């Protein structure tokens, strides 16, 4: 299968690719192969692989060509201008061959590079699933112990260490990879550079981190910290590095490195250093890569992934590492060292090959299970493996190995053992580490992700990578929970793996990726299937010489309109295939005709209406004057399609308290006019002409207005507000103007004034935990639901900015924004001084971001499955059409699929998401995203190709919607159950038989428990005492439209140790646990909504000086929201990092400085999601045990 798939894919795509990608690639050619390989690798891995591998390896060298192909592609796609040129494809043709090669290469690479890869792809990893007896261990702690115990100790102790380790290692790790992977990926574009930078940071940090980490952990740690850390780190890193890991991955990398060199730009530092490193690493491995060592840390998971490389490394490393080691020894013992051994050697020699091989055999299916042991060995080798599921089981065993690396960090070694056993506690380091998985993926992802291969899982959301559209939608648009869907509903039911896709239709692409092409099929509109109305796409099969096409969704045959006719080539493809985006790309847009417009009239340009609360609270908090002041400049940045032109978006202004004030800002007026509408019970728009105006024409009047609004209401005493009428007003205005648009509502308080939509205060914490709790999430009355319906019908999107000082009933106020595709922003206790920045940035972004209006989204699927459920910010009036009054680039919709028939492995499952919308210039368009995934009849295939982050996204949305109708506890139980079933099913059907006490997790789902636990512990499902109802409702609504990247960081915040900041890479994150914090360190945490800077109580003075410019801990002003601008590289870099984090997220994150032991630390600790939460949420370790218990119950 795989093979077949690939080939076809490759060939067709390959050609086009050349055209598209070339620009970017050229440089790569040389070096790229490596990157390329990795990807293919996975595929190859699956395939029995071996054979492919063989060739693959050969090809590696040849690989470049393939690379070139992709490059061409890029060119093609390149917005630069070549974009649509058909010709390129032709030229590219040659590349294709490469395509095939790439394959092989890929394989080869995989083997080599892959350590990381395998993980993703599963086969290897899965196989490796760690068979830890963990559960038992945990539970009984005793029995399994033999192996475990030994490990355990280290682990326990390690945790702290590991944190430090991880941090350290990863960075280093990353660095290492960067050269390899990063370069490749980066070359294509800017994307690369960023990545590298982060990596860079790595190396140095590691050492520091270790230090830090050692401290925080515990007394033991202290112990360790004082002495061990330094040494261990040093030693370790190198050792771990040395090894195995780098080599394997790098082996392939080397080529990459070469390529990198060309690209050096992005990673200047890297290029120079890394290449050598890698190579050296390979060759000499251990020594050279002192920098790499960090990698090893990941050990826990690594075992699995690395296995191949591992073994050799293990041996090698171990040798090298000796220091670390006590553990190592153990691991080997317990671990299937035997296996490893094999691989290791290979690796040593041919890392790539070796890798392949191992996976190969294992890969296909269950091998993982058995491999587990193997993995372990590998784990020891390199830090990498950790990623692999193996983590659990292996952990222990591997740990030993790991230990080596990790423990390596001597520090632990000593202290750890003792404590761990004593506690009888599962070693956090032995369980799958999200950080490790993330880092491994980064390493593995060394080249652009091409979407041509069906059923190929993309890199994780945490990884920077470039995407080349070769026929399927980019993962930036669509991410699936499973890239290999079960063929039958029975299988689906058995596995319980949710089949869902997270679609972000208007996602913004990085500048180096081409935005979707606009296709105009003329007056007759887009070509569509006669029966199912699917739009022309690459899956359509042209037959009868091109006179007809067969829809691959419903199999109906449709005539090709004469003007669209084109001859077919000998392969049955249209000759113009690569000239037409709709025939060769996964994502493109059609220009819609009037038939697609409301009332068959071309739409009017949209309008933005700003509705500002001017009641006492709003004025006093400064909100009014801030908004007015900001709008003056912001209005120049309304969204537009052509940056050269003025925006056609019209604007209108309304202020309100108990009554509404409309403003006439007609250009011909000398002064704006205020029109007060007090008839809030029956809202209407008092004027049309003059209310919605073009900014440029009415600039003076508008400025005068914005100047005067704050003055006018400066001494208002009105405290009551209305809300329903405010939205009605905007809606009516849009209706009157007959256009779609967006309302920006700036609101402060519970609307208690007499008017429709009046709310009463129902905040009653006593209801929490009772059956009535769900009512708190439900809106009061049906008024807002109806209003939302009206808004959607008109294409009126509502964005709500809340500035509450008390309960405002977000659950109710949010109904309209949530149903209309809008956003809610909440600034509790807004204070101009501290919150202004955050608010303004949010506002700016919200106003400026690309947005479509009056959208309807429809997901069509091939026969056999059906989109059955949708989650997000929208409204549905029937079961198939998702209606969005507004759809911006940050909104994602999660779609769940169910079987209604059988799928076939041959054709796979297709889905086409069509979004009809009005662009911000008033053009009606259709955006089409096509996605094809594989189908499997073996459960193992399913488990090999899942994406946990997406699953979590689905689960979170599912659960957060569930709380509307069910008790939160029931919702939590459902989640746990389903998760347990998923894992149990795997254990039962895919994992090799082993002791029931062993917890075996599929490689690609090994983080499911930890993430799920985060979901369960979220404020929505398990609120702490200090979490207001509004906050819960707010979060609940917020999640509903988040994409995978956002949910990921939201549930598992990114925690970066700030030790030494490299100019180009980020320090490697540490796990979200207090144990990983060092008292002497400073940490930066990002949750997507918050940004914390945690300062340890005994922080080094140098850090203080660098960051805060103060001498002592006590002088830090914890109320600051931005760091002082200091002229030192550390400060600059830190601020850069913060800025870059903020730029990544759709909402601006306010910086909160948290001093250890300070009151505010509680808030911070809340986000240390691996720990027990104050509200009763289980720690990761506990939850994992619990999960294991559940699984065992299911199995028995």
């Amino acid at each position: 299968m795989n093979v077949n798939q690939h080939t076809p894919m490759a060939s067709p795509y390959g050609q086009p690719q050349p055209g598209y990608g070339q620009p970017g690639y050229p440089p790569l050619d040389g070096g790229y192969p490596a990157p390329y390989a990795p990807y293919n690798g996975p595929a190859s891995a699956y395939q029995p692989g071996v054979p492919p591998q063989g060739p693959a390896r050969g090809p590696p060298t040849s690989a470049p060509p393939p690379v070139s192909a992709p490059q061409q592609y890029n060119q093609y796609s390149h917005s630069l201008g070549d974009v649509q040129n058909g010709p390129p494809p032709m030229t590219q043709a040659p590349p294709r061959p490469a395509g095939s090669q790439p394959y092989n290469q890929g394989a080869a690479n995989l083997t080599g590079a892959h350590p990381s890869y395998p993980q993703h792809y599963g086969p290897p990893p899965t196989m490796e699933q760690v068979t830890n007896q963990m559960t038992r261990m945990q539970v009984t702690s005793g029995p399994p112990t033999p192996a475990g115990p030994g490990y355990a100790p280290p682990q326990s102790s390690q945790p702290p260490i590991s944190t430090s380790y991880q941090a350290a290692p990863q960075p280093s790790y990353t660095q290492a990879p960067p050269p390899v992977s990063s370069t490749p990926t980066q070359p294509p574009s800017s994307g690369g550079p960023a990545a590298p930078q982060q990596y860079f940071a790595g190396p140095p940090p590691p050492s520091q981190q270790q230090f830090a980490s050692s401290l925080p952990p515990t007394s033991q740690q202290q112990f360790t910290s004082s002495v061990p850390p330094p040494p261990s780190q040093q030693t370790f890193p190198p050792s771990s590095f040395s090894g195995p890991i780098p080599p394997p991955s790098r082996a392939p990398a080397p080529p990459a490195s070469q390529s990198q060199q060309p690209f050096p730009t992005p990673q200047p530092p890297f290029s120079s250093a890394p290449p050598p490193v890698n190579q050296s690493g390979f060759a000499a491995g251990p020594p050279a890569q002192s920098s790499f060592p960090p990698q090893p840390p990941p050990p826990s998971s690594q075992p699995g992934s690395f296995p191949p490389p591992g073994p050799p490394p293990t041996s090698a490393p171990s040798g090298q590492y000796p220091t670390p080691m006590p553990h190592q020894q153990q691991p080997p013992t317990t671990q299937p060292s035997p296996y490893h051994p094999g691989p290791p050697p290979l690796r040593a020699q041919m890392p790539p090959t070796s890798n392949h091989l191992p996976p190969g055999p294992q890969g296909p299916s269950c091998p993982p299970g058995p491999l587990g042991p193997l993995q372990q060995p590998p784990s020891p080798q390199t830090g990498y493996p950790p990623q692999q599921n193996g983590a659990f089981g292996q952990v222990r065993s591997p740990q030993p190995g790991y230990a080596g690396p990790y423990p390596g960090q001597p520090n632990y070694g000593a202290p750890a053992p003792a404590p761990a056993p004593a506690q009888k506690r599962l070693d956090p380091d032995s369980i799958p580490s999200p950080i490790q998985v993330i880092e491994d993926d980064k390493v593995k992802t060394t080249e652009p992700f091409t979407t041509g291969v069906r059923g190929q899982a993309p890199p994780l959301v945490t990884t920077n990578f470039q995407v080349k559209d070769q026929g399927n939608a980019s993962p930036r648009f669509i991410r699936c929970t499973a890239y290999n869907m079960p063929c039958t509903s029975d299988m689906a039911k058995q596995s319980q793996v949710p089949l869902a896709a997270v679609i972000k239709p208007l996602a913004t692409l990085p500048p180096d990726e081409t935005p979707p092409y606009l296709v105009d099929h003329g007056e007759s509109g887009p070509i569509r299937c006669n029966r199912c109305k699917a739009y022309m796409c690459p899956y359509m099969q042209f037959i009868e010489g091109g006179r007809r096409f067969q829809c691959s969704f419903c199999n109906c045959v449709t005539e090709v309109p004469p003007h669209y006719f084109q001859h077919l080539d000998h392969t049955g493809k249209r000759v113009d295939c690569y000239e037409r985006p709709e025939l060769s790309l996964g994502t493109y847009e059609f220009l819609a005709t009037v038939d697609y417009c409301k009332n068959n009239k071309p739409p009017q340009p949209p309008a933005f209406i700003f509705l500002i609360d001017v009641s006492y609270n709003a004025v006093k908090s400064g909100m009014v004057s801030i908004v007015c002041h900001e709008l003056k400049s912001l209005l120049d940045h309304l969204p537009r399609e052509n940056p050269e032109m003025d925006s056609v978006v019209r604007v209108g202004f309304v202020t309100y308290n108990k009554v509404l004030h409309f403003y006439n800002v007609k250009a011909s007026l000398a002064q704006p006019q205020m029109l007060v509408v007090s008839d809030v019970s029956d809202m209407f728009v008092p004027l049309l002409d003059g209310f919605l105006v073009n900014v440029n024409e009415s600039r003076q009047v508008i400025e005068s207005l914005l100047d005067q609004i704050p003055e006018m209401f400066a001494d208002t005493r009105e405290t009551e507000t209305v809300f329903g009428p405010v939205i009605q007003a905007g809606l009516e205005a849009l209706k009157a103007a007959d256009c779609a648009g967006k309302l920006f509502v700036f609101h402060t308080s519970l609307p208690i004034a007499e008017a429709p939509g009046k709310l009463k205060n129902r905040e009653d914490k006593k209801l929490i935990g009772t059956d009535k709790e769900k009512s708190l999430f439900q809106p009061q009355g049906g008024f807002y639901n109806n209003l939302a319906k009206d808004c959607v019908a008109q294409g009126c999107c509502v964005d709500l900015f809340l500035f509450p000082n008390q309960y405002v009933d977000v659950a109710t106020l949010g109904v309209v924004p949530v149903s209309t595709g809008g956003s809610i922003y909440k600034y509790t206790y807004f204070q101009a001084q501290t919150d202004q920045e955050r608010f303004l940035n949010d506002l700016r972004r919200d106003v400026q971001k690309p947005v479509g209006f009056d959208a309807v989204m429809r997901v069509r699927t091939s026969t056999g499955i059906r989109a059955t459920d949708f989650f997000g910010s929208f409204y549905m009036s029937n079961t198939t059409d998702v209606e969005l009054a507004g759809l911006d680039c940050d909104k994602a919709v999660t779609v769940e699929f169910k079987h209604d028939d059988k799928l076939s492995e041959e054709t796979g499952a297709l889905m086409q998401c069509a979004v009809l919308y009005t662009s911000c210039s008033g053009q009606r368009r259709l955006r089409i995203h096509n996605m094809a995934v594989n189908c499997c009849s073996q459960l193992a295939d399913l488990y090999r190709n899942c994406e946990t982050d997406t699953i979590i996204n689905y689960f979170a949305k599912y659960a957060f919607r569930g709380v509307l109708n069910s008790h939160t506890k029931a919702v939590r139980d459902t989640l746990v159950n389903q998760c347990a079933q998923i894992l149990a099913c795997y254990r039962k059907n895919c994992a090799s038989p082993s002791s029931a006490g062993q917890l075996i997790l599929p490689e690609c789902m090994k983080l499911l428990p930890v993430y799920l636990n985060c979901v369960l512990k979220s404020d929505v499902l398990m609120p702490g005492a200090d979490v207001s109802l509004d906050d819960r409702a707010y979060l609940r609504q917020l999640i509903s439209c988040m994409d995978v990247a956002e949910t990921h960081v939201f549930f598992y915040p990114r925690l970066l140790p700030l030790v030494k900041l490299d100019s180009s890479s980020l320090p490697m994150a540490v796990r979200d646990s207090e144990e990983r914090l060092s008292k002497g360190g400073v940490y930066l945490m990002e949750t997507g909504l918050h940004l914390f800077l945690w300062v340890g109580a005994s922080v080094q003075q140098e850090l203080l000086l660098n960051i805060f410019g103060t001498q002592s801990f006590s002088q830090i002003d914890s109320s600051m929201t931005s760091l002082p601008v200091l002229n030192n590289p550390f400060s600059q870099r830190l601020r850069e990092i913060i800025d870059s984090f903020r730029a990544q997220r759709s909402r601006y994150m306010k910086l909160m400085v948290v001093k250890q032991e300070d009151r505010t630390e509680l808030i911070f600790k809340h986000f240390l999601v691996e720990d027990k939460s104050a509200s009763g949420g289980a720690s990761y370790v506990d939850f994992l045990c619990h999960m294991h218990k559940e699984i065992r119950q299911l199995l028995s």
Partner: protein
Amino acid sequence: MSTYQEFIQQNEDRDGVRFSWNLWPSSRLEATRLVVPVSCLLTPLKERPNLPPVQYEPVVCSRANCKAVLNPLCQVDFRAKIWACNFCFQRNPFPPSYAGISEMNQPAELMPQFSTIEYIVQRGPSAPLIFLYVVDTCLEEEDLQALKESLQMSLSLLPPNALVGLITFGRMVQVHELSCEGIAKSYVFRGTKDLSSKQIQEMLGLTKPAVSGQQGRPVAPQDAAAASCKFLQPVHRVDMNLTDLLGELQKDPWPVPQGKRPLRSTGVALSVAVGLLEGTFPNTGARVMLFIGGPPTQGPGMVVGDELKTPIRSWHDIQKDNARHLKKATKYYEALANRSAANGHSVDIYACALDQTGLLEMKCLSNITGGHIVMGDSFNTSLFKQTFQRVFSKDYNGDFRMAFGGVLEIKTSRELKVCGAIGPCVSLHSKGACVSENEMGIGGTSQWKVCGLNPSTTLGIYFEVVNQHNAPIPQGGRGAVQFITQYQHSNTQRRIRVTTIARNWADAQSQIQHIESSFDQEAAAVLMARLGVFRAESEEGPDVLRWLDRQLIRLCQKFGQFNKDDPTSFKLSESLSLYPQFMFHLRRSPFLQVFNNSPDESSYYRHHFVRQDLTQSLIMVQPILYSYSFYGPPEPVLLDSSSILPDRILLMDTFFQLVIYHGETIAQWRKAGYQEMAEYENFKQLLQAPLDDAQEILQTRFPMPRYIDTEHGGSQARFLLSKVNPSQTHNNLYAWGQETGAPILTDDVSLQVFMDHLKKLAVSSST
């Protein structure tokens, strides 16, 4: 006879009262036989330059249900300092302040020449005048511009302390806040929603709880009025503001699709205006001045839909009961009018449009509240501009010729009762001993509210003699009537004008001659006409005509001298001689004839007819025709087609129109330009003479008449031809010879035919 005419004239000059009969029949039975009821035209505020008001309060009868004011008819015991009420015969002591009176030292109110006297009362705070402009913005640019200028100009005519307010409307209704600096604010109401007064006040932030009005300015409870100041401001303070505001006034910004009328929310606008005043200045004189350029097309009070293809109702539709909105709209405006009247606010309507504007439905607003109605073709005409200017005309004292919040109370001696009043007033439902059960006009009360008054406002008051036939009135007994009018003078003083008149009783059987000679046929004609018009509002046209005819015939039978069944023997005495002629013209007048008039026009004419004084009313009934020729000075001539001669210039004044008609020859001369030649100076003068006279009339008339300059054969000549008695028509043209006038192409009966029939019927023994 002449004595009676003098008496009548003297009485009118002094008291502003003209009775139909100046001798009253002493019994009910006889009174009814007189056909024309005992009734009078009262001009409560007739200008009396020689009547300085007295600065004290009137002395009233102490009987609770009498409260008549001390007057010259009262018997006074100067020694006992007691006076006897001449209505209820209650004996009342004089108040202490009258301690010094004696026969030689009588207070003014006791002197016979002060049968009408005016008191200035120092009661309550004096409130400023209030003018609330309600302006339609669905106008053509040109009209709107003209209107804006007129309004701006009017600001300069207002007393500086007068309060002004501005409401504009189109599709929406905007109440403009005048006190603000910077951004111009206005409160907007949807034009389709009927709001209660309370809601309106709440929405305007006028109610107490809404303490923090728009700006959140603290509004202390005691100055709720201060809150209203947002909308009603002294002219001197907001002069500039308002001028600018008016200047920036835009045409209603809502697009009007093809084939549609603009949406005009006149109903809601008025409702808001009334509600605003109601909430802020109840019982204070205020004028709502409504300017409209078309019919209300939406919301409550809508008169016609916005589809142009459905024309506005015509009389034809109304007769066929085809006017969908008529009843509802009328009811709506009546309710508004009553609310407004209850608070003493009057509503003016200035309607300028080529088509109808819904005056039929809205007329009650002005009729009930004493407001003006002015109808024109465009705001950009001198007719409107000057008329509007004249609203603010001042009297010899420099005070506005307007008064507000008048309450008219009537006291009668026992033999008389009040049946009702017809005029711009509304009943106060004050039942008393002197209220008759027999209603004529607005009856059932002895008190009426007249919200807007001016010196020419005239009411017709109808009485009933209730004395029974068998209870003769003592010889020399006199019946007395007292009119007490309390009002707010335009200088904001509260005043009370008291007019007490008395007439002798006469026994109709023995003194029928005297009674006949006391007949005031002019007053009677107008009073009967008012009754007819009043009936016409609620009855079918033909019924009213029949009723009028019957009354006329009965009158002729009663007072004519004739031999039975001999029409030629029929004669009427001089005191009745003109009466049939008045009736003839009344029958043809637009007040009773709706043919050729739109419902709006009819309403407009009737509106003015029931409020103008006797002279003007007579002109309306029977237009005046002057003839100018070389043969002598201008002379009034018969309103007859025979007066239309080629060598004459005619000037006809119908009150509503002023027509100058050049006879055929004159017209030819004029066309030939003789007037330009020095030797024909006299011709030039002849041409000029009627123009000068017309100017004179134009100067004084309110509202400005339509000025028409036409000539023989001109299309506008129809205004003249439709009025004159069609003594010569195409039917009898040849019977009358050539040179005597112009034939009128009509089938209407001429006066001669009318009179012949009248005689025939009067002498007929069968009736």
